[in-house]
């Protein structure tokens, strides 16, 4: 079974986000980059499936700058077999990214295509179903349980107040959610091995984007909020203001 996992290089979730003066993006000085946390569930799942079956190849694929080699090496250190870097600065536009990934995937042979549910920088949550649609493949998103058998997979996905089961014929696209597994830490042996694993780099020209980032801003700091009072005595006053002033009761 061949599995391809798409991983993105993103700023660490603890990053203090500062929008640049021109409002075109965020200040990346001093930012620490990591493998998108949701993609770690995808890498882990791929490795587990390969381990259970005792056969198969796990390939990590990234569209990113040259430095994204670091994140692909992380995936290799966790246990992926080889990696491909499509070299370009990934745009915020999800469709452009999906088209680029799909163009690479079109000529590849795989049974399962794994993604994280969402990249924590742009928060687009759109690339996996777009790739599926472009390639004409079945797709389940936000998956917390995955059973892969010969030729098919059954996924459980979270929805409001419950879940739904999705049956997919392979090859298929699945995006992963927290709860699916516990991603392993790469050990020293893995990190050493990763240095020697094959990593192919290709330069790509991005197509024209379908959406355009006009500007960015930081959220308004604080509010005109106020402390209504201290202790239980303040409760009647709070209730009154919620009712009369804020009109939310």
């Amino acid at each position, binding site marked *: 079974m061949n599995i391809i996992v798409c991983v993105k290089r993103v700023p660490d979730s603890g990053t203090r986000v500062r929008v640049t003066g021109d409002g075109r993006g965020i200040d990346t000085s001093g930012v620490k980059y990591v493998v998108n946390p949701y993609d770690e569930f995808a890498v882990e799942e791929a490795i587990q499936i390969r381990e259970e079956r005792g056969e198969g190849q796990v390939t990590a694929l990234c569209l990113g700058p040259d430095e994204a080699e670091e994140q692909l090496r992380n995936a290799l250190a966790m246990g992926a077999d080889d990696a491909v870097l499509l070299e370009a600065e990934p745009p915020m536009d999800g*469709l452009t990214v999906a088209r680029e990934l799909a163009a690479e995937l079109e000529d590849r042979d795989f049974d399962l295509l794994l993604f994280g549910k969402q990249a924590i920088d742009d928060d687009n949550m759109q690339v996996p179903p777009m790739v599926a649609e472009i390639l004409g493949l079945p797709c389940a998103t936000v998956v917390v349980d995955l059973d892969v058998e010969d030729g098919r997979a059954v996924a459980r996905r979270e929805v409001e107040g419950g879940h739904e089961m999705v049956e997919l014929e392979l090859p298929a696209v699945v995006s992963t959610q927290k709860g699916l597994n516990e991603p392993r830490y790469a050990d020293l042996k893995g990190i050493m091995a990763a240095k020697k694993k094959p990593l192919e780099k290709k330069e790509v020209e991005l197509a024209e984007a379908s959406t355009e980032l006009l500007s960015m801003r930081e959220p308004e700091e604080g509010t005109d909020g106020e402390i209504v009072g201290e202790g239980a005595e303040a409760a009647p006053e709070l209730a009154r203001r919620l009712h009369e002033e804020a009109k939310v009761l």
Partner: protein
Amino acid sequence: MSDVLAYAELRGSQLRGVARETVTGARRLADELGGDVHVVSVGPPGSGEEVASLADYGADRIFTAEDGEFGAYHPDALVRAFQYLADQEEYAAILFPASARGKDLAPRVAARLGRGLATEITDLEVEDGEPVVTRPTYADKAYARVGFTESPALMSIRPNVFIPEESQGSGEHEELEVDADPVRTRVSPVETSEEGKLDVAEASQVVSGGRGMQGPDNWSLLEDLVDALGPGTALGASRAVVDAGWRPHAEQVGQTGKVVSPNLYVAVGISGAIQHLAGMRTSNVIVAINKDPEAPIFDVADYGIIGDLFEVVPELTEEIRKIRGDGG
């Protein structure tokens, strides 16, 4: 090219609350563009009638497809329905709710139509006759204004941002033929975890508890407050209490939990870590109850009480009951 299409999300044959929000957003956009609102649904036999009620929220033309196969989410049929309509009509925009289903469906439609998609938008305007949206990025730590290079512009709207507004649309109901086959992705009907339990991401009032609650057995305190606030209210939790196993992960609000944007958010015994704020800072009115005056939750709160939650919450619950009881 000024009409707007909205997806009417169903669960079984029931319209979901977010469907009215989506139509409300579409109406607002169509009014600015000087166009009509179209609505589409794909559901089980009998569901079309219910969808037709969206005329009261401004729908002018209502396209419904019914089939026994459409009782559960059917992404393949839905994509066909959207493609059919987009080929027939020239839409300026297509709106989806940023619900679990909407976020799964919208990218499929976008890729099929080859058009851009902006997810989880929190604001919508028209500039030079074109839709421009605002959407949070970096877990709500920054906001992006986004335009579209070609129409239709696809967008999903964050739940609770567009509060449903009644407005009379002409409500012409048309049946749509949509094939149930072929099926690439076969989805079973939703199994609800607890009957009728409202999801925190869609509630219009949320009461969240944090580590200050001191243990899983004290939650009846918050349940009483939820009850006093009435229908549409759900429980939420900080990650600290979810990690401690006091509450289920489905209730977690924040960067690694759900993003909520209710009309009222009450944070009880929650310090207000940046990762928690990421999940609730777009709420309309934020109330914080915390014994620590320095807690960062007070920086985003509209109203705060400094004090012991075990004393404040029962009193607040009582006062809210009084107000709501008096015809409030």
